[in-house]
């Protein structure tokens, strides 16, 4: 395996400080969703309630050093509760779903 790398000592170790999300905790976003993946079209109305924005450490496989062993990298992550419209009201379908993650290196 060939490693081509550059390294530099830096004083700024915050790699999420350049991330700015256009959403905030407490906001809701509703989408009409349709698919026909199994030969017939289905439609849903989905609502995402933003519940948390924080730093999350992810295991990053297939990185520049190994496909087998992960490197741990922090991302600023947006989590939401997912609701699905059942015809009369929104039902909680999944909670604390990750719907976005980024850092200064990987937007």
């Amino acid at each position, binding site marked *: 395996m060939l*490693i081509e790398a550059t390294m530099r*000592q830096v004083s700024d170790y915050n790699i999420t400080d350049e991330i700015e999300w256009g959403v905030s905790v407490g906001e809701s976003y509703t989408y009409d969703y349709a698919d026909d993946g199994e030969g017939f079209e289905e439609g849903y109305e989905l609502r995402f309630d933003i519940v948390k924005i924080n*730093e999350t450490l992810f295991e990053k496989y297939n990185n520049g050093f190994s496909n087998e062993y992960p490197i741990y990298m*922090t991302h600023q992550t947006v989590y939401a509760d997912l609701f699905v419209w059942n015809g009369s009201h929104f039902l909680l379908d999944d909670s604390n779903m990750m719907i976005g993650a980024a850092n200064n290196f990987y937007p």
Partner: protein
Amino acid sequence: MMFRDIWIYDITSIENVTLNWLGTNIFSQLNATQCYYNTTLGLLEVYENSRELGLFGYHNTDTIQHKLRAGENGVPFILPINGTKGLEVDVMADIINSSCYSPEGNPGINLFDSYSSDTLLNRIYFSNSSDGYFSDIYYYENGTLDHASVELRI
């Protein structure tokens, strides 16, 4: 796109250890943990156990008297300094060549057949004339890595 990452090392201890590496002897081992910065908490948080970042030893009875090991990294991230003379990259280049980059020192890394140093730039340069692999490393006066570029086969 080249993979990009940040490695934050928190030096946790410097201790004397006895281990078998190019001979069984006592070494000075510098240990560190890797951390990430949690913006929400405003804290550096540790995410792994402390492990070797650097290892150095001198044993005048061994064939290779001075030994330096770079933890699990392909280049030494930190070098020992002379108490009166400070960082001596010319001396350390010899030591890195004969231990860290030797066949016995860091198995798996390609061999270099030439090396040089520049004491004004605190630079150590290793290369292999036939395969083109190299390790070009610059250090601060305190022995920590300033910047480097490498092409290594591991």
